[in-house]
Protein backbone atom coordinates (compact mmCIF):
# COMPACT_ATOMS: atom_id res chain seq x y z
CA UNK A 1 0.00 0.00 0.00
CA UNK A 2 2.77 2.42 0.96
CA UNK A 3 4.67 1.39 -2.16
CA UNK A 4 1.63 2.24 -4.30
CA UNK A 5 1.55 5.72 -2.82
CA UNK A 6 5.24 6.19 -3.41
CA UNK A 7 4.69 4.97 -6.97
CA UNK A 8 2.00 7.61 -7.47
CA UNK A 9 4.29 10.45 -6.47
CA UNK A 10 7.35 8.99 -8.18
CA UNK A 11 5.52 8.65 -11.50
CA UNK A 12 4.26 12.20 -11.20
CA UNK A 13 7.71 13.63 -10.43
CA UNK A 14 9.36 11.64 -13.23
CA UNK A 15 7.02 13.07 -15.83
CA UNK A 16 6.52 16.61 -14.54
CA UNK A 17 9.54 17.83 -12.63
CA UNK A 18 12.66 19.16 -14.32
CA UNK A 19 14.36 19.87 -10.99
CA UNK A 20 15.22 16.18 -10.57
CA UNK A 21 17.33 16.27 -13.75
CA UNK A 22 19.72 19.15 -13.12
CA UNK A 23 23.26 18.91 -14.42
CA UNK A 24 25.23 17.42 -11.56
CA UNK A 25 24.68 15.03 -8.64
CA UNK A 26 24.93 17.79 -6.03
CA UNK A 27 22.35 19.94 -7.84
CA UNK A 28 19.97 17.01 -8.07
CA UNK A 29 20.46 16.12 -4.40
CA UNK A 30 19.92 19.74 -3.33
CA UNK A 31 16.74 19.97 -5.36
CA UNK A 32 15.35 16.66 -4.11
CA UNK A 33 16.04 17.61 -0.49
CA UNK A 34 14.80 21.17 -0.93
CA UNK A 35 11.60 20.53 -2.88
CA UNK A 36 10.53 17.50 -0.87
CA UNK A 37 11.24 19.40 2.36
CA UNK A 38 8.93 22.20 1.27
CA UNK A 39 6.39 19.68 -0.07
CA UNK A 40 6.20 18.10 3.39
CA UNK A 41 5.46 21.47 4.96
CA UNK A 42 2.76 22.21 2.39
CA UNK A 43 1.16 18.76 2.55
CA UNK A 44 0.96 18.99 6.32
CA UNK A 45 -0.35 22.56 6.46
CA UNK A 46 2.79 24.12 7.95
CA UNK A 47 3.91 27.62 7.03
CA UNK A 48 7.01 27.22 4.86
CA UNK A 49 10.02 29.37 5.60
CA UNK A 50 10.79 31.74 2.74
CA UNK A 51 13.85 33.50 4.12
CA UNK A 52 16.39 32.70 1.43
CA UNK A 53 16.27 32.70 -2.38
CA UNK A 54 16.70 28.91 -2.28
CA UNK A 55 13.74 28.63 0.11
CA UNK A 56 11.57 30.55 -2.35
CA UNK A 57 12.74 28.43 -5.27
CA UNK A 58 11.98 25.13 -3.57
CA UNK A 59 8.65 26.52 -2.39
CA UNK A 60 7.74 27.50 -5.98
CA UNK A 61 8.53 24.02 -7.28
CA UNK A 62 6.89 22.26 -4.32
CA UNK A 63 3.72 24.33 -4.55
CA UNK A 64 2.98 23.10 -8.08
CA UNK A 65 3.79 19.53 -7.14
CA UNK A 66 1.60 19.58 -4.04
CA UNK A 67 -1.29 21.20 -5.87
CA UNK A 68 -1.16 18.63 -8.69
CA UNK A 69 -0.77 15.68 -6.35
CA UNK A 70 -3.66 16.77 -4.12
CA UNK A 71 -5.83 16.97 -7.23
CA UNK A 72 -4.73 13.59 -8.59
CA UNK A 73 -4.34 11.40 -5.49
CA UNK A 74 -7.27 11.53 -3.05
CA UNK A 75 -5.43 9.44 -0.47
CA UNK A 76 -3.15 12.38 0.37
CA UNK A 77 -5.94 14.33 2.04
CA UNK A 78 -6.65 11.42 4.35
CA UNK A 79 -3.00 10.76 5.19
CA UNK A 80 -1.55 11.57 8.59
CA UNK A 81 1.60 13.65 9.03
CA UNK A 82 3.54 10.51 9.82
CA UNK A 83 2.25 8.84 6.68
CA UNK A 84 3.14 11.86 4.54
CA UNK A 85 6.62 11.78 6.06
CA UNK A 86 6.95 8.10 5.27
CA UNK A 87 5.77 8.51 1.67
CA UNK A 88 8.06 11.47 1.02
CA UNK A 89 11.02 9.63 2.57
CA UNK A 90 10.27 6.70 0.30
CA UNK A 91 9.97 9.03 -2.67
CA UNK A 92 13.32 10.59 -1.85
CA UNK A 93 15.00 7.18 -1.78
CA UNK A 94 13.49 6.33 -5.16
CA UNK A 95 14.47 9.64 -6.72
CA UNK A 96 18.04 9.55 -5.40
CA UNK A 97 18.40 6.02 -6.72
CA UNK A 98 16.88 6.85 -10.10
CA UNK A 99 18.54 10.14 -10.95
CA UNK A 100 21.78 9.92 -8.94
CA UNK A 101 23.10 6.57 -7.76
CA UNK A 102 21.80 4.41 -10.61
CA UNK A 103 21.94 7.05 -13.32
CA UNK A 104 24.35 6.19 -16.10
CA UNK A 105 24.61 9.82 -17.22
CA UNK A 106 28.37 10.21 -17.62
CA UNK A 107 28.41 13.95 -16.89
CA UNK A 108 26.78 13.83 -13.49
CA UNK A 109 29.95 13.90 -11.43
CA UNK A 110 32.11 16.24 -13.51
CA UNK A 111 33.45 18.86 -11.11
CA UNK A 112 32.92 21.69 -13.61
CA UNK A 113 29.71 22.84 -15.26
Amino acid at each position, binding site marked *: MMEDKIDDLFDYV*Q*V*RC*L*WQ*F*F*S*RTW*DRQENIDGVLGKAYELFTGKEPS*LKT*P*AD*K*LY*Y*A*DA*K*SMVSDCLASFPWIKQASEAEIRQVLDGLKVRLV*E*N*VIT*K*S*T*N*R*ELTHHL*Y
Partner: protein
Amino acid sequence: MPMVLLKCDSDIPERQKHIYLKGPNEDSTEFLPVANAPTIPGTLSERGCAFCGAKLVIGGVLKDTIQMIHGPLGCAYDTWHTKRYPTDNGHFNMKYVWSTDMKESHVVFGGEKRLEQSMHEAFDEMPEIKRMIVYTTCPTALIGDDVKAVARKVMKDRPDVDVFTVECPGFAGVSQSKGHHVLNIGWINEKVATLEPEITSEYTMNFIGDFNIQGDTQLLQTYWDRLGIQVIAHFTGNGTYDALRGMHRAQLNVVNCARSSGYIANELKKQYGIPRLDIDSWGFNYMAEGIRKICAFFGIEEKGEALIADEYTKWKPKLDWYKERLQGKKMAIWTGGPRLWHWTKSVEDDLGIQVVAMSSKFGHEEDFEKVIARGQEGTYYIDDGNELEFFEILDLVKPDVVFTGPRVGELIKKLHIPYVNGHGYHNGPYMGFEGFVNLARDTYNAVYNPLRHLAGVDIRDANPVALPVKIREAA
Protein backbone atom coordinates in the same frame (compact mmCIF):
# COMPACT_ATOMS: atom_id res chain seq x y z
CA MET B 1 13.41 -3.66 -24.94
CA PRO B 2 17.12 -3.49 -25.51
CA MET B 3 18.92 -0.87 -27.51
CA VAL B 4 18.07 -1.18 -31.19
CA LEU B 5 20.34 -2.06 -34.09
CA LEU B 6 18.56 -0.91 -37.23
CA LYS B 7 19.01 -2.82 -40.48
CA CYS B 8 20.72 0.15 -42.11
CA ASP B 9 23.31 0.17 -39.33
CA SER B 10 24.51 -3.40 -39.87
CA ASP B 11 27.92 -2.08 -40.98
CA ILE B 12 28.19 0.38 -38.10
CA PRO B 13 26.89 -1.67 -35.16
CA GLU B 14 28.21 0.96 -32.73
CA ARG B 15 25.04 2.88 -33.54
CA GLN B 16 23.07 0.44 -31.41
CA LYS B 17 24.20 2.32 -28.29
CA HIS B 18 22.46 5.44 -29.57
CA ILE B 19 18.98 4.12 -30.38
CA TYR B 20 16.46 3.02 -27.78
CA LEU B 21 12.92 1.66 -28.08
CA LYS B 22 11.17 2.13 -24.74
CA GLY B 23 9.50 -0.97 -23.37
CA PRO B 24 6.97 -1.42 -20.57
CA ASN B 25 8.12 -0.28 -17.13
CA GLU B 26 11.61 0.59 -18.33
CA ASP B 27 13.47 3.71 -17.30
CA SER B 28 16.70 5.49 -18.09
CA THR B 29 18.68 3.69 -15.39
CA GLU B 30 18.36 0.54 -17.50
CA PHE B 31 18.70 1.99 -20.99
CA LEU B 32 20.14 5.40 -21.77
CA PRO B 33 21.36 6.24 -25.28
CA VAL B 34 24.98 7.31 -25.40
CA ALA B 35 24.92 11.01 -26.26
CA ASN B 36 27.27 13.96 -26.73
CA ALA B 37 29.77 11.44 -28.07
CA PRO B 38 31.84 11.66 -31.28
CA THR B 39 29.92 10.83 -34.43
CA ILE B 40 30.75 7.33 -35.61
CA PRO B 41 32.72 7.17 -38.88
CA GLY B 42 30.43 5.88 -41.59
CA THR B 43 27.31 7.59 -40.37
CA LEU B 44 26.05 10.72 -42.12
CA SER B 45 25.45 12.96 -39.15
CA GLU B 46 22.99 15.84 -39.20
CA ARG B 47 25.00 17.72 -36.59
CA GLY B 48 26.40 21.22 -36.79
CA CYS B 49 29.85 22.33 -35.65
CA ALA B 50 30.94 23.82 -32.34
CA PHE B 51 31.45 27.31 -33.82
CA CYS B 52 27.90 27.17 -35.15
CA GLY B 53 26.59 26.45 -31.65
CA ALA B 54 28.23 29.58 -30.28
CA LYS B 55 27.46 31.95 -33.14
CA LEU B 56 24.27 30.78 -34.77
CA VAL B 57 22.45 29.67 -31.66
CA ILE B 58 23.44 32.15 -28.95
CA GLY B 59 25.71 35.08 -29.87
CA GLY B 60 24.19 35.89 -33.23
CA VAL B 61 20.81 36.51 -31.67
CA LEU B 62 21.88 39.76 -29.98
CA LYS B 63 20.34 42.83 -31.53
CA ASP B 64 23.10 45.35 -30.96
CA THR B 65 26.30 43.42 -31.54
CA ILE B 66 28.61 42.98 -34.50
CA GLN B 67 29.39 39.29 -34.99
CA MET B 68 32.93 39.26 -36.37
CA ILE B 69 33.75 35.81 -37.68
CA HIS B 70 37.49 35.36 -38.03
CA GLY B 71 37.80 32.82 -40.78
CA PRO B 72 36.94 32.06 -44.41
CA LEU B 73 33.78 33.56 -45.78
CA GLY B 74 31.75 30.34 -45.65
CA CYS B 75 31.78 30.15 -41.85
CA ALA B 76 30.02 33.52 -41.78
CA TYR B 77 27.65 32.98 -44.67
CA ASP B 78 26.51 29.55 -43.51
CA THR B 79 25.64 30.82 -40.04
CA TRP B 80 23.71 33.83 -41.34
CA HIS B 81 20.02 33.91 -42.16
CA THR B 82 19.46 30.27 -41.30
CA LYS B 83 17.68 31.09 -38.02
CA ARG B 84 14.56 33.12 -37.57
CA TYR B 85 15.22 35.35 -34.57
CA PRO B 86 13.80 38.79 -35.22
CA THR B 87 14.40 41.78 -32.96
CA ASP B 88 12.43 44.86 -32.02
CA ASN B 89 15.04 47.20 -33.54
CA GLY B 90 14.59 46.27 -37.17
CA HIS B 91 16.32 42.88 -37.13
CA PHE B 92 19.88 44.26 -37.10
CA ASN B 93 21.24 40.80 -36.35
CA MET B 94 19.62 39.29 -39.43
CA LYS B 95 20.43 42.07 -41.88
CA TYR B 96 24.20 41.98 -41.68
CA VAL B 97 27.03 39.48 -41.68
CA TRP B 98 30.68 40.12 -40.90
CA SER B 99 33.77 38.10 -41.77
CA THR B 100 37.52 38.62 -41.94
CA ASP B 101 37.42 36.66 -45.22
CA MET B 102 40.62 34.73 -44.56
CA LYS B 103 42.61 33.70 -47.62
CA GLU B 104 45.58 31.41 -48.04
CA SER B 105 48.11 34.19 -47.45
CA HIS B 106 46.54 35.01 -44.10
CA VAL B 107 46.69 31.39 -43.09
CA VAL B 108 50.38 31.27 -44.08
CA PHE B 109 51.43 34.60 -42.57
CA GLY B 110 48.89 34.92 -39.75
CA GLY B 111 45.51 36.61 -39.62
CA GLU B 112 45.78 38.95 -36.62
CA LYS B 113 46.39 42.10 -38.71
CA ARG B 114 43.50 41.12 -40.93
CA LEU B 115 41.28 40.71 -37.88
CA GLU B 116 42.31 44.05 -36.39
CA GLN B 117 41.67 45.81 -39.70
CA SER B 118 38.27 44.12 -40.05
CA MET B 119 37.21 45.08 -36.53
CA HIS B 120 38.06 48.72 -37.15
CA GLU B 121 36.33 48.64 -40.55
CA ALA B 122 33.17 47.23 -39.02
CA PHE B 123 33.06 49.81 -36.21
CA ASP B 124 33.79 52.60 -38.73
CA GLU B 125 31.00 51.43 -41.02
CA MET B 126 28.52 51.18 -38.14
CA PRO B 127 29.44 54.02 -35.79
CA GLU B 128 26.27 53.58 -33.75
CA ILE B 129 27.26 50.00 -32.81
CA LYS B 130 29.73 49.73 -29.93
CA ARG B 131 29.67 46.05 -29.10
CA MET B 132 31.25 43.09 -30.88
CA ILE B 133 31.74 39.36 -30.48
CA VAL B 134 34.77 37.88 -32.26
CA TYR B 135 34.70 34.17 -33.07
CA THR B 136 37.61 31.99 -34.07
CA THR B 137 36.99 29.31 -36.69
CA CYS B 138 38.91 26.15 -37.61
CA PRO B 139 41.72 27.77 -39.65
CA THR B 140 42.32 30.72 -37.34
CA ALA B 141 42.41 28.45 -34.31
CA LEU B 142 44.81 26.08 -36.04
CA ILE B 143 47.27 28.84 -36.92
CA GLY B 144 47.05 30.17 -33.37
CA ASP B 145 45.83 33.72 -33.96
CA ASP B 146 45.61 35.48 -30.58
CA VAL B 147 42.16 37.00 -30.90
CA LYS B 148 42.05 38.11 -27.28
CA ALA B 149 45.19 40.21 -27.76
CA VAL B 150 43.70 41.77 -30.89
CA ALA B 151 40.46 42.51 -29.04
CA ARG B 152 42.38 44.19 -26.22
CA LYS B 153 44.29 46.32 -28.74
CA VAL B 154 41.11 47.42 -30.50
CA MET B 155 39.43 48.25 -27.19
CA LYS B 156 42.50 50.32 -26.23
CA ASP B 157 42.29 52.20 -29.53
CA ARG B 158 38.54 52.67 -29.15
CA PRO B 159 37.69 53.22 -25.50
CA ASP B 160 33.95 53.37 -26.20
CA VAL B 161 33.68 49.81 -27.54
CA ASP B 162 33.52 46.46 -25.76
CA VAL B 163 34.53 43.18 -27.39
CA PHE B 164 33.94 39.59 -26.30
CA THR B 165 35.87 36.73 -27.84
CA VAL B 166 34.66 33.17 -28.35
CA GLU B 167 37.46 30.73 -29.03
CA CYS B 168 35.47 27.76 -30.21
CA PRO B 169 36.51 26.51 -33.64
CA GLY B 170 34.23 24.06 -35.41
CA PHE B 171 36.36 21.06 -34.52
CA ALA B 172 36.39 21.86 -30.78
CA GLY B 173 33.60 19.47 -29.87
CA VAL B 174 31.42 16.67 -31.12
CA SER B 175 28.54 18.98 -32.10
CA GLN B 176 27.18 22.50 -31.77
CA SER B 177 26.69 21.76 -28.07
CA LYS B 178 30.34 22.57 -27.38
CA GLY B 179 29.82 26.06 -28.75
CA HIS B 180 26.94 26.66 -26.37
CA HIS B 181 29.19 25.60 -23.52
CA VAL B 182 32.18 27.73 -24.48
CA LEU B 183 30.10 30.86 -24.97
CA ASN B 184 28.23 30.35 -21.66
CA ILE B 185 31.35 29.87 -19.59
CA GLY B 186 33.30 32.60 -21.38
CA TRP B 187 30.53 35.10 -20.81
CA ILE B 188 30.13 34.39 -17.08
CA ASN B 189 33.88 34.54 -16.54
CA GLU B 190 34.62 37.62 -18.61
CA LYS B 191 31.52 39.79 -18.91
CA VAL B 192 28.96 39.19 -16.20
CA ALA B 193 29.20 41.84 -13.45
CA THR B 194 31.08 44.30 -15.65
CA LEU B 195 28.06 46.60 -15.81
CA GLU B 196 25.38 47.45 -13.26
CA PRO B 197 21.82 47.24 -14.62
CA GLU B 198 19.15 49.77 -13.83
CA ILE B 199 16.61 48.11 -11.54
CA THR B 200 13.05 49.19 -12.23
CA SER B 201 10.99 46.58 -10.34
CA GLU B 202 11.09 44.82 -7.00
CA TYR B 203 10.86 41.57 -8.99
CA THR B 204 13.80 40.82 -11.26
CA MET B 205 14.83 37.77 -13.25
CA ASN B 206 16.93 36.64 -16.18
CA PHE B 207 15.14 34.62 -18.82
CA ILE B 208 17.70 32.12 -20.06
CA GLY B 209 17.64 29.83 -23.10
CA ASP B 210 15.06 31.43 -25.34
CA PHE B 211 16.20 32.89 -28.63
CA ASN B 212 13.14 34.79 -29.83
CA ILE B 213 12.41 32.32 -32.59
CA GLN B 214 9.74 34.11 -34.62
CA GLY B 215 8.99 36.32 -31.64
CA ASP B 216 8.91 33.84 -28.71
CA THR B 217 10.74 36.26 -26.41
CA GLN B 218 8.57 39.18 -27.39
CA LEU B 219 5.40 37.20 -26.75
CA LEU B 220 6.56 36.01 -23.32
CA GLN B 221 7.72 39.54 -22.49
CA THR B 222 4.07 40.65 -22.61
CA TYR B 223 3.44 38.23 -19.71
CA TRP B 224 6.35 39.53 -17.63
CA ASP B 225 5.25 43.11 -18.29
CA ARG B 226 1.72 42.32 -17.11
CA LEU B 227 3.13 40.65 -14.00
CA GLY B 228 5.43 43.59 -13.26
CA ILE B 229 8.56 41.45 -13.44
CA GLN B 230 11.70 43.09 -14.82
CA VAL B 231 13.72 40.81 -17.08
CA ILE B 232 17.25 42.09 -16.55
CA ALA B 233 18.69 39.95 -19.34
CA HIS B 234 17.29 37.75 -22.02
CA PHE B 235 19.86 35.09 -22.81
CA THR B 236 19.72 35.88 -25.67
CA GLY B 237 16.39 36.40 -27.52
CA ASN B 238 15.90 40.04 -28.55
CA GLY B 239 18.71 40.69 -26.07
CA THR B 240 21.50 43.21 -25.80
CA TYR B 241 25.16 42.79 -25.01
CA ASP B 242 25.09 45.16 -22.05
CA ALA B 243 21.98 43.62 -20.49
CA LEU B 244 23.84 40.33 -20.36
CA ARG B 245 26.67 42.03 -18.43
CA GLY B 246 24.18 42.73 -15.65
CA MET B 247 22.89 39.20 -15.14
CA HIS B 248 24.40 39.03 -11.65
CA ARG B 249 21.72 41.37 -10.29
CA ALA B 250 18.67 39.21 -10.98
CA GLN B 251 16.83 37.54 -8.10
CA LEU B 252 15.92 34.49 -10.18
CA ASN B 253 17.16 32.70 -13.28
CA VAL B 254 14.35 31.16 -15.28
CA VAL B 255 15.68 28.57 -17.72
CA ASN B 256 13.85 27.32 -20.78
CA CYS B 257 16.58 25.71 -22.89
CA ALA B 258 18.66 23.92 -20.29
CA ARG B 259 20.88 22.38 -22.96
CA SER B 260 22.21 25.52 -24.62
CA SER B 261 22.16 27.73 -21.57
CA GLY B 262 22.05 25.65 -18.39
CA TYR B 263 25.76 26.27 -17.90
CA ILE B 264 25.42 29.99 -17.25
CA ALA B 265 22.44 29.40 -14.94
CA ASN B 266 24.52 26.91 -12.95
CA GLU B 267 27.42 29.36 -12.71
CA LEU B 268 25.13 32.23 -11.71
CA LYS B 269 23.87 30.01 -8.92
CA LYS B 270 27.38 28.99 -7.87
CA GLN B 271 29.04 32.39 -8.14
CA TYR B 272 26.20 34.76 -7.20
CA GLY B 273 23.70 32.57 -5.34
CA ILE B 274 20.89 33.21 -7.85
CA PRO B 275 18.49 30.24 -7.86
CA ARG B 276 17.77 28.39 -11.11
CA LEU B 277 14.17 27.57 -12.00
CA ASP B 278 13.68 25.35 -15.06
CA ILE B 279 10.37 25.63 -16.88
CA ASP B 280 8.76 24.54 -20.15
CA SER B 281 7.51 27.45 -22.26
CA TRP B 282 5.76 25.40 -24.95
CA GLY B 283 2.26 24.17 -24.18
CA PHE B 284 -0.73 25.49 -22.23
CA ASN B 285 -0.34 23.28 -19.22
CA TYR B 286 3.41 23.81 -19.01
CA MET B 287 3.26 27.57 -19.59
CA ALA B 288 0.67 27.96 -16.87
CA GLU B 289 2.81 25.90 -14.53
CA GLY B 290 5.87 28.00 -15.34
CA ILE B 291 4.00 31.24 -14.67
CA ARG B 292 2.66 29.83 -11.40
CA LYS B 293 6.17 28.88 -10.26
CA ILE B 294 7.65 32.25 -11.13
CA CYS B 295 4.81 34.04 -9.37
CA ALA B 296 5.11 31.78 -6.33
CA PHE B 297 8.81 32.66 -6.12
CA PHE B 298 7.97 36.37 -6.04
CA GLY B 299 4.83 36.00 -3.93
CA ILE B 300 2.52 37.39 -6.62
CA GLU B 301 0.37 34.31 -7.18
CA GLU B 302 -2.87 36.25 -7.66
CA LYS B 303 -1.42 38.21 -10.57
CA GLY B 304 -0.28 34.97 -12.13
CA GLU B 305 -3.67 33.34 -11.82
CA ALA B 306 -5.35 36.37 -13.38
CA LEU B 307 -2.95 36.27 -16.32
CA ILE B 308 -3.47 32.55 -16.85
CA ALA B 309 -7.24 32.93 -16.68
CA ASP B 310 -7.14 35.73 -19.28
CA GLU B 311 -4.98 33.72 -21.62
CA TYR B 312 -7.06 30.56 -21.25
CA THR B 313 -10.23 32.49 -22.00
CA LYS B 314 -8.68 33.93 -25.12
CA TRP B 315 -6.82 30.95 -26.53
CA LYS B 316 -8.08 27.67 -25.05
CA PRO B 317 -11.17 27.40 -27.32
CA LYS B 318 -8.91 27.76 -30.35
CA LEU B 319 -6.53 25.12 -29.02
CA ASP B 320 -9.42 22.76 -28.37
CA TRP B 321 -10.66 23.17 -31.97
CA TYR B 322 -7.34 21.86 -33.18
CA LYS B 323 -7.12 19.20 -30.47
CA GLU B 324 -10.37 17.70 -31.64
CA ARG B 325 -8.90 17.31 -35.13
CA LEU B 326 -5.39 16.25 -34.15
CA GLN B 327 -6.36 13.68 -31.53
CA GLY B 328 -4.53 10.43 -32.11
CA LYS B 329 -2.20 11.74 -34.80
CA LYS B 330 1.36 10.44 -34.64
CA MET B 331 4.29 12.84 -34.51
CA ALA B 332 8.05 12.43 -34.86
CA ILE B 333 10.34 15.11 -33.42
CA TRP B 334 13.83 15.35 -34.92
CA THR B 335 15.39 18.50 -33.55
CA GLY B 336 18.40 19.58 -31.51
CA GLY B 337 17.75 18.03 -28.13
CA PRO B 338 15.62 19.89 -25.56
CA ARG B 339 12.52 20.20 -27.73
CA LEU B 340 12.14 16.44 -27.45
CA TRP B 341 11.42 16.65 -23.74
CA HIS B 342 9.75 20.05 -23.91
CA TRP B 343 7.25 18.87 -26.52
CA THR B 344 6.52 15.18 -26.04
CA LYS B 345 4.09 15.66 -23.12
CA SER B 346 2.78 19.05 -24.17
CA VAL B 347 1.56 17.83 -27.56
CA GLU B 348 0.21 14.70 -25.87
CA ASP B 349 -1.64 16.54 -23.08
CA ASP B 350 -2.71 19.67 -24.95
CA LEU B 351 -3.34 18.24 -28.43
CA GLY B 352 -3.85 14.52 -27.99
CA ILE B 353 -0.91 13.75 -30.26
CA GLN B 354 1.23 10.67 -29.76
CA VAL B 355 4.98 11.14 -30.22
CA VAL B 356 6.33 7.95 -31.78
CA ALA B 357 9.97 8.77 -32.50
CA MET B 358 12.42 11.41 -31.35
CA SER B 359 15.94 12.14 -32.49
CA SER B 360 18.39 14.60 -31.00
CA LYS B 361 21.38 16.10 -32.79
CA PHE B 362 23.29 17.49 -29.84
CA GLY B 363 21.42 16.49 -26.68
CA HIS B 364 23.40 15.07 -23.79
CA GLU B 365 22.52 12.05 -21.67
CA GLU B 366 20.72 14.42 -19.29
CA ASP B 367 18.33 15.27 -22.12
CA PHE B 368 17.64 11.60 -22.74
CA GLU B 369 16.97 11.05 -19.03
CA LYS B 370 14.33 13.77 -19.26
CA VAL B 371 12.72 12.60 -22.47
CA ILE B 372 12.65 8.92 -21.53
CA ALA B 373 10.96 9.88 -18.25
CA ARG B 374 8.35 11.92 -20.11
CA GLY B 375 7.99 9.96 -23.32
CA GLN B 376 5.80 7.01 -24.11
CA GLU B 377 6.49 3.29 -24.31
CA GLY B 378 6.89 2.04 -27.87
CA THR B 379 8.61 5.30 -28.87
CA TYR B 380 12.09 5.43 -30.42
CA TYR B 381 14.71 7.68 -28.77
CA ILE B 382 17.66 8.36 -31.06
CA ASP B 383 20.93 10.20 -30.56
CA ASP B 384 22.61 11.80 -33.60
CA GLY B 385 20.35 10.07 -36.09
CA ASN B 386 21.43 9.78 -39.71
CA GLU B 387 19.41 9.88 -42.91
CA LEU B 388 19.20 6.14 -43.51
CA GLU B 389 18.05 5.65 -39.94
CA PHE B 390 15.37 8.26 -40.49
CA PHE B 391 14.10 6.34 -43.53
CA GLU B 392 13.94 3.12 -41.55
CA ILE B 393 12.32 4.71 -38.50
CA LEU B 394 9.72 6.43 -40.68
CA ASP B 395 8.81 3.07 -42.09
CA LEU B 396 8.53 1.59 -38.60
CA VAL B 397 6.45 4.30 -36.93
CA LYS B 398 4.62 5.89 -39.88
CA PRO B 399 4.14 9.39 -38.42
CA ASP B 400 1.39 11.73 -39.56
CA VAL B 401 3.71 14.71 -39.15
CA VAL B 402 7.41 15.28 -38.55
CA PHE B 403 8.78 18.29 -36.65
CA THR B 404 12.34 18.86 -37.79
CA GLY B 405 14.65 21.39 -39.43
CA PRO B 406 14.57 22.46 -43.09
CA ARG B 407 17.48 20.18 -44.00
CA VAL B 408 15.82 16.95 -42.88
CA GLY B 409 12.52 18.55 -43.83
CA GLU B 410 13.45 18.30 -47.50
CA LEU B 411 13.80 14.56 -47.10
CA ILE B 412 10.48 14.39 -45.32
CA LYS B 413 8.70 16.40 -48.01
CA LYS B 414 10.04 14.17 -50.75
CA LEU B 415 8.45 11.24 -48.97
CA HIS B 416 5.16 13.20 -48.99
CA ILE B 417 4.99 13.17 -45.22
CA PRO B 418 3.72 16.36 -43.59
CA TYR B 419 6.57 18.41 -42.17
CA VAL B 420 6.66 21.36 -39.78
CA ASN B 421 9.82 23.38 -39.14
CA GLY B 422 10.66 22.41 -35.60
CA HIS B 423 13.64 24.75 -35.39
CA GLY B 424 12.62 28.07 -36.91
CA TYR B 425 8.86 27.28 -36.94
CA HIS B 426 6.50 27.61 -39.88
CA ASN B 427 4.44 30.53 -38.55
CA GLY B 428 5.43 31.19 -34.95
CA PRO B 429 5.90 32.13 -32.25
CA TYR B 430 5.18 28.74 -30.71
CA MET B 431 5.89 29.54 -27.03
CA GLY B 432 3.22 30.67 -24.62
CA PHE B 433 -0.52 30.22 -24.99
CA GLU B 434 -0.98 32.02 -28.31
CA GLY B 435 2.18 30.34 -29.56
CA PHE B 436 0.93 26.85 -28.88
CA VAL B 437 -2.21 27.60 -30.85
CA ASN B 438 0.12 28.60 -33.71
CA LEU B 439 1.91 25.28 -33.36
CA ALA B 440 -1.42 23.45 -33.38
CA ARG B 441 -2.55 25.38 -36.47
CA ASP B 442 0.68 24.61 -38.36
CA THR B 443 0.39 20.95 -37.38
CA TYR B 444 -3.20 20.85 -38.57
CA ASN B 445 -2.33 22.59 -41.84
CA ALA B 446 0.51 20.15 -42.43
CA VAL B 447 -1.47 17.02 -41.64
CA TYR B 448 -4.49 17.99 -43.75
CA ASN B 449 -2.67 19.77 -46.56
CA PRO B 450 -3.85 18.30 -49.91
CA LEU B 451 -0.74 19.48 -51.79
CA ARG B 452 1.48 16.71 -50.49
CA HIS B 453 -0.84 14.18 -52.12
CA LEU B 454 -0.71 16.09 -55.38
CA ALA B 455 3.07 16.04 -55.21
CA GLY B 456 2.90 12.26 -55.17
CA VAL B 457 0.84 12.03 -58.35
CA ASP B 458 2.83 11.05 -61.43
CA ILE B 459 1.39 13.34 -64.10
CA ARG B 460 2.97 11.24 -66.86
CA ASP B 461 0.52 8.53 -65.98
CA ALA B 462 -2.59 8.61 -68.20
CA ASN B 463 -4.69 7.48 -65.25
CA PRO B 464 -3.11 9.04 -62.19
CA VAL B 465 -3.96 7.67 -58.79
CA ALA B 466 -6.92 9.51 -57.33
CA LEU B 467 -6.40 11.72 -54.34
CA PRO B 468 -7.24 10.29 -50.94
CA VAL B 469 -10.80 11.02 -49.95
CA LYS B 470 -9.80 11.88 -46.42
CA ILE B 471 -8.37 15.24 -47.35
CA ARG B 472 -9.85 17.99 -45.24
CA GLU B 473 -12.11 15.54 -43.49
CA ALA B 474 -11.47 17.33 -40.22
CA ALA B 475 -12.38 20.74 -41.51
